[in-house]
């Protein structure tokens, strides 16, 4: 199939950036990123600058890739990272617009690559259980109800790709933050620090320049791991009870 790509090209963080149009011949069995590989091979053979995009595992789990395809982070399919999108969902003659995430907390580095280190700093602010390596109690010492463990897992499935931020009109990172807060707060091991954690992570999120949550819930729709917005309610509860109790 013959496709027309309109791709965001930006030389550096300071460059203004613009769309460029490319033609590419793709097979329906290719993945979206393999289609971009084919384009880049062509550009390299013509001695042109290839398109910079980030990727690694190409199995939808490392969270490195993340393109905005025709306005949707990770493209049209539900519960799918960019690398898992295949060209069989497109047809001959389609025009595909490919952009980087747009959020002031995720500055564009080059072309389609953005800087997501703000997420690392949010985790460093408190997204962990304070336990050092050593000899903790036996793994079975604290039973955890099966459904509770499953809920915690559902939140822990976040791959930190940042699509939630790109999908949000406010560029809020609430889904990311709430997924980590929920993952840990739902487990007895993480309950101890839950309130302190929620406050510290939200403080860091605000410092990084992410927007406020106004319950648009576009984040849940675009999340490749289908993380639920229920987690945001859980974060708000932890944060509120921490804020009310802190001065007493």
């Amino acid at each position, binding site marked *: 199939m013959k496709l027309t790509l309109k791709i965001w090209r930006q030389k550096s963080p300071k460059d203004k950036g613009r769309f460029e149009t490319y033609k590419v011949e793709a097979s329906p069995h290719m993945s979206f990123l393999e289609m971009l590989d084919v384009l880049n091979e062509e550009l390299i053979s013509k001695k042109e600058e290839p398109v910079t995009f980030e990727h690694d595992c190409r199995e939808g789990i490392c969270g490195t890739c993340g393109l905005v395809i025709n306005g949707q982070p990770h493209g049209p399919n539900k*519960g799918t990272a960019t690398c898992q999108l295949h060209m069989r969902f497109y047809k001959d003659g389609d025009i595909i617009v490919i952009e980087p995430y747009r959020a002031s907390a995720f500055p564009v580095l080059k072309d389609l690559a953005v800087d997501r280190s703000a997420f690392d700093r949010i985790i460093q602010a408190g997204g962990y259980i304070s336990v050092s*390596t050593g000899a903790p109690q036996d793994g079975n010492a604290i039973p955890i109800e099966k459904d509770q463990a499953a809920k915690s897992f559902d939140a822990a499935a976040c791959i930190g790709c940042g699509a939630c931020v790109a999908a949000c009109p406010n560029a809020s990172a609430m889904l990311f933050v709430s997924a980590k807060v929920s993952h840990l707060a739902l487990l007895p091991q993480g309950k101890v620090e839950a309130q302190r954690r929620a406050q510290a992570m939200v403080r860091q999120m605000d410092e990084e320049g992410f927007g406020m949550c106004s319950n648009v819930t576009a984040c849940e729709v675009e999340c490749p791991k289908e993380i639920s917005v229920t987690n945001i309610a859980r974060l708000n509860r932890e944060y509120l009870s921490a804020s009310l109790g802190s001065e007493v």
Partner: protein
Amino acid sequence: MSFDNNTPPGPLAEKWSRYRGTMNLVAPNNKRRIEIIIVGTGLAGASAAATLGELGYKVKCFTFHDSPRRAHSIAAQGGINAAKNYANDGDSVYRLFYDTIKGGDYRSRESNVYRLAEVSRNIIDQAVAQGVPFARDYGGLLDNRSFGGVQVSRTFYARGQTGQQLLLGAYQALSRQIAEGNVEMYNRHEMLDLVLVDGKARGIIVRNLLTGELERHAAHCVVLGTGGYGNVFYLSTNAMNCNVTAAWRATRRGAYMANPCFTQIHPTCIPQSGDYQSKLTLMSESLRNDGRVWVPKKQEDAKAIREGKKTGNDIPEEARDYFLERRYPAFGNLVPRDVASRAAKVACDEGLGVAPTGLAVFLDFEAAFMRYGQSKAHSAGLHNPSDAKVRELGVKVIEEKYGNLFEMYEKINGEDPYKMPMKIYPAVHYTMGGLWVDYNLETNIPGLFAIGECNFSDHGANRLGASALMQGLADGYFVLPYTIGQFLSQDIRTPKFDPNAKEFLDTEKDTRERLENDERQGQPVGGKLPPPPR
């Protein structure tokens, strides 16, 4: 030259505890002065960086990713072994040790493997304490499953994303140390060379991937947790950026490789579909617990399937060859990886392959749907349920167990595995060989350590399923933090190394010349080579 593996004396079962009790320690006030470079932030690298940071060393940690959480350990699906014997099915430290040795065709170092089996139990406790959401049963206790090659249930898992959850645990522990200032994290920095001072590893040359500049970093020792060399093969299941540069440069500086021929071919990958293919995707081997592997008995049937005239469902039971069950009745579909891979290749070589390329066999869940469905119907008190109802109930059980794997298969392949048998084919997956290390995980270059898949010692000629995560975390959390003291205790009076010293400047110059030379010859540096001629 001679190799001393420094295995401590004494009976196998007591080596590690005796050694730990008598080895040299570094006092806390000295740890603060000692710098350690760790390259790689997968399970081994991140867990080592976190633990050494907690101990008080000054750690500098490097990854070429934009965040330490992206390392390819994250893609491990199946699980992690531990000799907990929660299932009360006869497991023990000795049995895990023995299975690992036997599975590796008696080519692993016994002392290292026994230690690995011993600390496997601590890993589970540590991970649970970190908040890793392992699968649990209705009593709230940790659930286990059995994994290819063994006859006990000792594998702990978090749906099909065990590697992700364990890596996030290690990443979070590492993040805590970064926040506390014990670990200095260098994201988007790729190691390009190793710096030796008086024959000891004292630093690295890295490229800052944002600016393109080369940088020199110095420390008292260097730890490589940079994974295996699977991507020397044209297609593998390794991530795109796993380019083995760090370990390769270490060998160029004199480190020895051991067992480089021992490459694991994983039996259950999604078959290749075309020339443009960038990598292969693994389906967890845990699928073989419930799936049955088969090809048509007759070449005509296989040919019709390849040409799209028939599907797997059109082949009647008596025309199918469940070749693993037939050839290995004791283990059936759970034979070790190498055996399953070889058998699949033999079947395809005989013209019985079922994908258009001729390179695929079926992995069929029909029997599992019905078996689980019947047990579900029985416990729900349904009498004489219809086959369709039983199958529906069974599909739900399988969905709960392997839902994300089935989904992933459909996304890539375009076929619904709940309706059609899956197609699988072996692919390069893991490298048992690696940098030679002694009992302390130190290579033959003093001060250069190799942990996780990067070293060679624990898996012999063949790794058992769910043992890679175990080894990475064992090395990082529970072995290296002790054994590194044997080297560093000799260095407590050694001042910081100067990255502007002659050795560093010379190595940087070497690196620069090598890169420029590669560029002139049009070779992509550290990238993929062009495909072989067809």
